[in-house]
Structures are given as structure tokens and as C-alpha cells.
């Protein structure tokens, strides 16, 4: 995996978060080996407001990139969360279901939603990197 923002060779692997990639729909995924951890971005959690319910996927569920994998609800609205990559759900953040506000408080750490075993690792590289995502957010804000 190429990682332009923080190359693994120059940082100790355990102390630096893995590079995230983003979808235009504001999901993020970070990949460790062939397993991607999925959540929603800080921008998305802010736009959504206080999250009160998270619907997690079933472990074992096969998902296509762009298909619905989870749902997040705030007082304002329900939002479908789409799989940023194709693969099989290998873990769901059960603790998050009990603490939905983690999405707001810690969107990139405690607020992860599920882990997907990538069936097509090349898909990861097609997602937006930190910089392009930032541009995308700025553009959508106007």
C-alpha cells in the first residue's frame, strides 16, 4: 500500500494512525493488511449532529462498494452509510451501538463502525486521500 501522507517506513506503525481514505459520501476507511476499518468523517458527524442510534451490519455480510452497510441516526435525520470498499464484514463495533455519541466525539477512533475484509484491495487506492477529501469538503460547503 502506498501511503503518501505518512509513509509506514518513516513512522512507527503502532503510534501513528493508518492513512485514511474517503468517499465523496463522507465515509472513511483505513486499511491494515487486507482489513479495512470503516467510519464516517468528522465533517459528516458535524453535519449530522448528535447521533442517537447506529445500525451495525451483521458480521459475515458481503457488501459491494457503494452499497448500504450501516445507518446512523441523529435527531435530525437518518443517514445510510455506504461501504467504501467491496468485501465481507468481519467485525462490527458493538460498543458503538451502546454509545452512539462516539461517532461525534471520536469519529476516527472509538466511532469506527465495522471492519471489512477487502476482496479487491485496489479499490482503496481509488478513494480520496486526505488532501482531495479536504478539497471535496470545501467544495461541498459552498
Amino acid at each position, binding site marked *: 500500500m502506498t501511503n503518501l501522507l505518512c509513509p509506514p517506513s518513516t513512522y512507527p506503525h503502532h503510534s501513528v494512525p493508518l492513512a485514511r481514505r474517503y468517499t465523496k459520501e463522507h465515509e472513511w476507511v483505513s486499511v491494515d493488511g487486507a482489513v479495512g476499518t470503516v467510519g464516517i468523517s468528522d465533517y459528516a458527524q458535524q453535519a449530522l*449532529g*448528535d447521533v*442517537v*442510534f447506529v*445500525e451495525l451490519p451483521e458480521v459475515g455480510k458481503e457488501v459491494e462498494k457503494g452499497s*448500504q452497510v450501516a*445507518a446512523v*441516526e*441523529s*435527531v*435530525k*435525520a*437518518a443517514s*445510510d452509510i455506504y461501504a467504501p470498499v467491496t468485501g465481507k464484514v468481519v467485525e462490527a463495533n458493538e460498543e458503538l451501538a451502546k454509545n452512539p455519541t462516539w461517532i461525534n466525539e471520536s469519529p476516527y477512533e472509538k466511532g469506527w463502525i465495522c471492519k471489512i475484509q477487502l476482496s479487491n484491495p485496489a479499490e482503496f487506492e481509488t478513494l480520496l486521500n486526505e488532501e482531495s477529501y479536504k478539497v471535496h469538503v470545501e467544495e461541498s460547503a459552498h
Partner: protein
Amino acid sequence: MVPFAGWEMPVQYADMGVLQSHHHVRESAGLFDVSHMLQTKITGSDHLAFLSRVLVADLSSVPSDRAQLSLITNDRGGIIDDCVVQRRDDHVYLVSNAGTRDKDLAHLHTQLEIFRKEGGDVALEVMEGESLLALQGPKSAQALATLITAPSSPDFLASIPFMAAADVDVAGVPVRLTRCGYTGEDGFEISLPHSEAPRIAELLLSSLGGSVVKLAGLGPRDSLRLEAGLCLYGHDVDEDVSPVEAGLAWTISKKRRAEGGFLGAETILDQIKSGPTRKRVGLIVDGAPAREGAQILSLSGEKLGKVTSGAPSPSLKKNVAMGYVPAGQSKLGTELQVEVRGKKYNAKVVKMPFVPARYYKPN
């Protein structure tokens, strides 16, 4: 900001999320700019006779300076709009929805013409120059009292019960004050000239030290009215729903039930007698919040109706919803199911309002 009935409206303001803003209104006070709503004045020597045709209200029995929730009905017994109508000395002041502005006015003008052809003296005037501020929450009266310059009695507001109105001066500006709202809390709607609205709003926001009254947007307005069991026009009620089905038959007095005379009276009065086939109910839904459009099912999976509004209730920390079910399934305590994203969740018919109203009654 979101587009709403041709206006750009804030869902929330920068200093607070929907949840926080919701709690702030329940605990302190919120200020909603509801100037998008349609304010009209109905005048003329026969204005009450005219209104008895287009509204279900019994205005001839209402004293001046008293308001009530009423309904504009169509000839099929459906609801064209809901409104707050208030008697004044020589006219009636009506506040109705922004989203229905054009059709309300078209309907009222059509009826006006018919009435005039019959020789009636009535006129309708849209109060274009007036803003409307809704101050809502338990500290509303306390905050507003600091700005009332006339009448000078310090406990003047204590004499105004829920659904009563008065002309007062707020910071020197004559306004029309009505003790009503859309949150289930004590509060006021203040009708005042556009030119003075920003200044009065600023004064309310800075009253009592500046942390008591906070701006509130459409987000909390919706969650608050839902908890209060109040209908949102176009969602919970519309032209194909009768007042009886909607649980709003209480807006039709004994006298009006006996005399009829409003559009759709036959259908509506018949339904009052024989009972409606479906009813609006309140639901508490387990698991996922059920939103508008969610299917309501019996325990055996039979499709019963749809949710018309629903959200997680910030005050109850439960999912609340309203929707329509066959009258036979509408009894309090009935166990039902609601489908959200293909999954069925248990739901129970409960009493509305979900959160008890705290309207003001003088001692």
C-alpha cells in the same frame, strides 16, 4: 440552512446542535423566527359568519383576545390547513402555515367571492409588514417581562393564560402578543413590524444576562412539536385526512356539531357519530427511530398504515412517532411493529402528548 416553503431557514444555529437546542427550550427558552408563517386579518361586519364557513371554529362563542387551534376544511371533510385563530375587537387574526400559503389564500379568496356575492361584508388582508417571533420555554415569561414597557404592571404577563392575547409594548414597540406556541411549553408568539423584529430579537437574546434565551431553528422546532403530539401540516394531516381521523375533533364545539355549516361538515359530523375507520396514534418504537413513511404492521405482519412523523425524542430518550392505523388497532397499549430499513421493530400505541404539556394557567 435549508429551503423551506420558499424561504431559507436554519435547521440549527451555530452555537448549539439540535439536541442541545431542544433541551434548552425545555429547560430555559428558545427564540424561533417564524416570520415565514402566513398572518392574515379578516375584517368586515360579517367576518364571523364568513369564518364559520371556512373554519370549524365556533368564533361567535369566543371572547375577544382569545385564540384557538382551528382547521380550514375542504368540502370533502379534509384539512386544507391548520391554524391559530384569534378574535380581536373588530376582526379576526389568523396564523397559518408557510408551506400552504398559496393554496390557503386561493381557497380563502374563492370562498370570499362566493360569500360576497351572497351579500356578505368581509375582507381579507395579508399582514405583509409583520414578522412573527416565537419565544418558547419555561423562562419565556421571565425574559419577556424585562422588556415590556406597557402596560406597566410588573406582573402583567401572569394574568395572560395559555391561548390568550394582548396588545403590549415591547421595548417601546407596540406588538401583538399571544400566549401560544408549537413546543408544548409556555411561551409567546409576538407579531411585530419587520423593521423592529431584529432589535427586539436581540433584546430578548441578551435579556436576563444573555444565556437564558437562545436562537432555535427548524430542527428543535420539529422534535419539540413531535414530543408535544402536535401535527405538522402536510405530514400528519393533509387534504385527505379528516379532523376526526387526525384526533382533532376537539376543535369542533358542541354548537358547531349541532349546527354544521362549515365546509365538509356532513362528512366530518357523520364520522364523529359513527367513528372513523382510521386514527392518528402515538407510537413508541424500540430500536431504530421510525421516520415518515415507515410501514406500521400488526404483530402478525399485516400492513396497517404509515408513520407520518417520527424521531428519537431527546426528552424521553425513546423513539417516538405518529401515524395512522385502523381504528380497531388504535387503542392505547396495542402492540404493533414498525419496519425500518427492512427490519421490524416492536412498537406500542401510547398516549399523546409524549411529553406532558406545560401551558400556563394563572393561579
